């Protein structure tokens, strides 16, 4: 087995009748690494993930997962290795109950009905959602849906977890829990996101895409102090690394109930 878990070489792709969405993209992912893919709107992040998971086929270059090339022929095998969490959990949740939804993937992979209970409960416990097992997915809150969607993918025990905008539409507390969750997973992770604070907390490396090209591939702290590069990629420093104007003197602020 190679020590590169995911290897992307010279990848190129264009939607029909458009400028290339990805152009000569190359990078590798090692075992256990957590890597972020960042870039402004339209930079090509979602397109890249679609190529990795075989929903789109590259025009140039190749992708290897372990020893397997991403091709039509290898897709069934790859689906066991790559766990893809969709941007919108509503697109992913399908079954009438959370339990059955989490069981959907492992049953398709051939986990036997005797073992399924253990697998499902374990996956739900990992995301702290065991109490939701009997609920209907569409009745859950955004954060709960996300947790269940992630459990559905974890239950398939993938080697690589691929997440598209995982903190999208989460409130601060749910986002915090998600970050804690991602930090605890030992999976190799590839996360496409606009949430640079999440990157700072979870990822050890960042790939910056801009107009379909890799602009940088560096450690988060190095990258986020390079303002020129950030601007070029339509990004800003994470909030936690931004310096603010001085906070108004607290004595000017009266308790709310006094203001009438």
């Amino acid at each position, binding site marked *: 087995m190679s020590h590169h878990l995911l290897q992307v070489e010279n990848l190129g792709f264009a939607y029909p009748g458009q400028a290339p969405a990805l152009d000569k993209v190359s990078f590798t992912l090692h075992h256990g690494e957590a890597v972020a893919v960042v870039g402004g709107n339209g930079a090509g992040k979602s397109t890249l993930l679609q190529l990795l*998971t075989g*929903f789109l086929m590259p025009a140039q270059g190749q992708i290897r997962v372990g020893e397997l090339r991403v091709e039509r022929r290898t897709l*069934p095998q790859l*689906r*066991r290795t*790559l766990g*893809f969490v*969709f941007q*919108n959990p509503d*697109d*992913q949740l*399908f*079954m*009438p*109950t959370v*339990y*059955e939804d989490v*069981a*959907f*993937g492992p*049953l*398709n*992979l051939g986990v036997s*009905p005797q073992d*399924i*209970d253990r697998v*499902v409960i374990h996956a739900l416990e990992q995301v702290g959602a065991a109490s939701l097992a*009997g609920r*209907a997915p*569409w*009745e859950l809150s955004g954060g709960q849906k996300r947790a269940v969607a992630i459990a*559905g*993918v974890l239950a*398939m025990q993938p080697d690589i977890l691929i997440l598209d905008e995982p903190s999208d539409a989460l409130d601060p507390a749910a986002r915090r829990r998600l970050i804690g969750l991602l930090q605890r997973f030992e999976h190799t992770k590839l996360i496409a996101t606009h949430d640079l604070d999440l990157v700072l907390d979870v990822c050890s490396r960042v790939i910056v895409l801009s107009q379909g090209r890799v602009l940088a591939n560096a450690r988060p702290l190095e990258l986020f102090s390079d303002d020129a590069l950030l601007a070029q990629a339509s990004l800003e420093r994470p909030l936690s690394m931004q310096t603010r104007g001085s906070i108004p003197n607290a004595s000017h602020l009266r308790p709310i109930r006094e203001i009438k």
Partner: protein
Amino acid sequence: MAGLAHALSSIRRADSLAGRSTLASTIDARAKLLASLWVVGVLASFPSYEVASLLPLALFPVVLLVTGEVPLGWLCGRLLLALPFVLMVGMLNPWLDPSPMASPWGAPIAAGWFSLASILLRGLIAVSSALLLLATTGIIRIGYAMSALGLPAVLVNQVLFLYRYLFVVGEELARTVQAWQLRRAGKPRHGVPPHQLKLLLAAVLARTFQRAMRIHQAMLARGFDGQLRLPSAPRWHLRDTVFLLFWIAFPLLARLVDIPLTLGRLLTGA
């Protein structure tokens, strides 16, 4: 448009209702599916002017309603939605078929009124049976039962996807129309002008298509190969056999013997 979103989500509630454990939900999905089809089939085989003799078949939805502990309000609400469609089928009959026919209260009326009443009754029994099957079984188990009964997976998946996409279309439609209403910025016009309607529908279609694609991709990503699998395969019990046999025999009896008439004769000793 909030109305449409609401209507869809209340149909979707059927799946939550089906998740509870009730007497009706413990009956095997295959038994319930076959019984429902049989009842509807027998219903369709009655001559077109029959009204009173159809009534015993209403026992089937009533039994599902009670043993499934389905809220009556839910059923009535959904039936109201279906009523216009049923009415549309038979609305013109009293005029198309004016030949006089003896009515229970003596004076002859147009035969079309009988066929209209008959269509209405059949429609209500059939639709409520279908709704209650859904509310006591859930779409996934119905799909599973269909494939267990030997229907090809392609067909079963069509049913499941259609059901799923129904909600997708509804959600996208509701969202698009809401966005349009907000941007209309308080102009007091009701309805959508035709040229905008076209754009609106195109937007809904495009978004529905994209979402449908993503839903399908998400299933493929989780190893879906066209065959539906359930965590616990349903088992056939004696009670399922009894249920099915009863609901095959009873509609047959109702079809062959006019039960209300016979009962009436027995009671009045005529």
